[in-house]
């Protein structure tokens, strides 16, 4: 692999924001640390977003103690499909998806069985902090399974991608989706070989795709032309994302949104330290957009007005 270097001046001209600038200017100056639990603890996120009427996957229950673990089987006897996730987990660790039942056993998307004992053990692990940052004790959230919309069919190798929207002071400035490939082993991790697909903020249409930092046109596994992706309900998706600003008060925020077949866009997760790869997937630096929004900070706008502004401004 030959490393090709560019110059800082060229990057600056392209409006690229680097890691240091993100940490010093975007995160340190806009995201007060005491607000972090609002996004780092998914249970708190769920509570405060539900209060404000933001659409999220419905909650079935929370297991907080080992006592709850023993009641699980009884508690879940009506539910055919659900997801169990650690509240303070990161990077998708410890998430168990159940798509069906067979007697007492649970069925995973892969078709494998999970016995009630194994399920209890998994939840017990979550509670003891196996998946949380630094091994802190955690709680397990049980959510309804999202019925994914089929717009992503053929665009992803395994699983259904979510859409990451970056919000700067509540204005959506960039969006992307990460499409897993066989190379990334079904994981939506860009440096493991997932495809990053930039999405036009004003239209919801695919912009350009990159894999390993290089432009690609077709999905390496399914062969689907990536530029054909057009996210439906785009404006309401952006509105949903934009509302999260009022809830979290974080100036630099990443909102991960999925499309439910019946309910439309649902907020999955929030991130107070969204990464910078989105610039590569969009093929443009975010600095010009940040500067533009910075000038708008004095103007009071509702979430819908902010989205309307972004759609107009970033056409």
């Amino acid at each position, binding site marked *: 692999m030959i490393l090709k270097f560019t110059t800082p001046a060229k990057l600056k001209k392209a409006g*690229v924001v680097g*890691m240091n*600038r993100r940490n010093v200017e975007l995160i340190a100056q806009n995201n007060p640390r005491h607000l972090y639990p609002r996004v780092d603890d998914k249970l708190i996120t769920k509570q405060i977003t539900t209060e404000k009427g933001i659409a999220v996957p419905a909650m079935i229950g929370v297991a907080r103690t080992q006592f709850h673990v023993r009641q699980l089987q009884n508690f879940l006897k009506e539910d055919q499909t659900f997801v169990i996730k650690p509240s303070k987990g990161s990077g998708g660790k410890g998430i168990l998806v159940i798509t069906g039942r067979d007697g007492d056993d649970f069925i995973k998307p892969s078709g494998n069985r999970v016995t009630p004992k194994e399920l209890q053990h998994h939840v017990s692990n979550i509670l003891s902090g196996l998946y949380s940052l630094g091994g802190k004790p955690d709680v397990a959230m049980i959510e309804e399974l999202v019925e994914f919309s089929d717009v992503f069919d053929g665009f992803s190798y395994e699983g259904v991608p979510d859409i990451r929207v970056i919000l700067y002071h509540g204005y959506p400035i960039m969006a992307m989706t990460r499409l897993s490939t066989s190379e990334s082993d079904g994981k939506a991790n860009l440096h493991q070989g997932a495809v990053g697909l930039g999405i036009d903020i004003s239209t919801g249409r695919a912009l350009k795709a990159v894999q390993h930092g290089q432009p690609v046109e077709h999905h390496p596994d399914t062969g689907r032309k990536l530029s054909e992706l057009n996210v439906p309900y785009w404006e309401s998706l952006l509105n949903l994302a934009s509302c999260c600003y009022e809830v979290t008060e974080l100036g630099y925020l990443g909102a991960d949104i999925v499309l439910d077949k019946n309910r439309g866009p649902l907020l999955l997760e929030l991130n107070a330290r969204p990464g910078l790869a989105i610039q590569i997937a969009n*093929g443009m630096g975010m600095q010009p957009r940040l500067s533009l929004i910075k000038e708008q900070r004095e103007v009071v706008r509702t979430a819908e007005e902010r989205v309307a502004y972004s759609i107009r401004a970033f056409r």
Partner: protein
Amino acid sequence: MSARCQLCILISFLLITGIGLTLYKCAVLGFMFSPEGTETVWQVQGRIQFEAAGGPAKISLTMPVEEQSRRTVFQEKISDDYKCVFVEEEGIRKAVWTRKDAQNTQVIYFRGDFYHQGVQELDPPLSTENPYGIPTGPGKLAARDILLRARVTATSNLDIALRVIGLMGAESKSPSARILLKNVKYRREHMEQVAKILAMDGIQSRVVRGLLLKGSYTQRSITTFIRVYTGDRWALLDPNALAEIAFNEALLWPEGTRGLLDVYGGSDSHIDLSVTSIQKNAGNLAIDAGKLSGSALIDFSIFSLPIRDQNTFKLLLLIPLGALVVVILRNLVGIRTSGTFMPILIALTFMQTTLLLGLLLFLIVVSVGLVMRSYLSHLNLLLVPRIASVLVFVIIIFAAIGIASHKLGWESGLAITFFPMIILSWTIERMSILWEEEGPKEVLIQSGGSLFTASLAYLVMINPNVAHLAFNFPELLLVLLAIIIMIGSYSGFRLLELTRFEPMTRVKK
């Protein structure tokens, strides 16, 4: 803006304080930037002997003139039975030994080690008045004769003075010289006649007693020197050698000192002096001198600690340098390491094991540990018991390497024990999780980054010049802190981002 302002003020304060203290220590206290610099140390030893009268005895010895440039590194004035103090009378320092009952032959030893840091500048003479007057009576004509003859060959004041000393010397005893030296018994009076002759020509001079430091003989005695004002500086002349000598080549006593030694309660006293010179490390000398003079910067520093604790600090003071390397590599270059400061600890270990051996042992322990840890993954253990198990693995690996290398006659394998096992356990744990979540490529990137950072930090910390600076100038820590804070507020691109975002500048034509 205010935060930015504060940052600027803080950084400049740290820089000014750090650099200022460093320069002060260099210029005033004689610290050296390089560890190799040496200085000539004069060891003056004295022996006072006298016949005691049987009662109380008091011996006082006039001390040489205090000079800014002379830095004493060692002094000893204690003789077993004597009490010794320094007293100052009319600006003249004396060492005084006392004893209640002294009998027979008494001997007192003393010693002073010092070196010169530059050459002392003397103030020019205040007035044109000469303390010795000018020759009178018949001496006036004789002096004029000598001056005339001196002027024939000499032009500068210095040359004239040397010629006059020569003409007044023993070998060339002219009639004029004989007149002037008629009642002169002592060397000091001899030189005062020279001073009087020079005064006739308006040349200022002073007769001083001193000990010549330079020379090949060890045994010395106090001699008389004359210092002459050449018009822009004082020159010290050695009448015996008929040559100018540098001020730092002689130890001078205050002007007007007659006898150096006063003995009460005894007789037949005499003093023997010897001078030896040795070369010593300049840095150590500056510390010794600073301790002796009670300089606050030295007194309240690491140098006031016992040697063993100083050695601990020698290592501790290097750690911030390792931290700086980590900061630079992470925030300016953009290298990913596993564990923020783990590389520093590894670098410290390398200092004990040497680099290549350290790298080899690290790789062995971590890779064996990873294999063992991969088995634990299947057991779904809780976090703390899992890391505790890894710790046990690490110790087993340590023991295995130690025993195996000993049996194979490869003793350096025993250096394995220098590795911090808790840190290694965490490293193995973290890399194992990384392997499962992000794949082996990320493990290679991060462990490679860690080892690269550790090696670089090691190379910085092992450098003798760097170690010398860190230990002798701990105030440079403030400069280091300023640099780290500066990097902390740097919002520009990292070096590796120039390749990461390179496609973006390529596409945008």
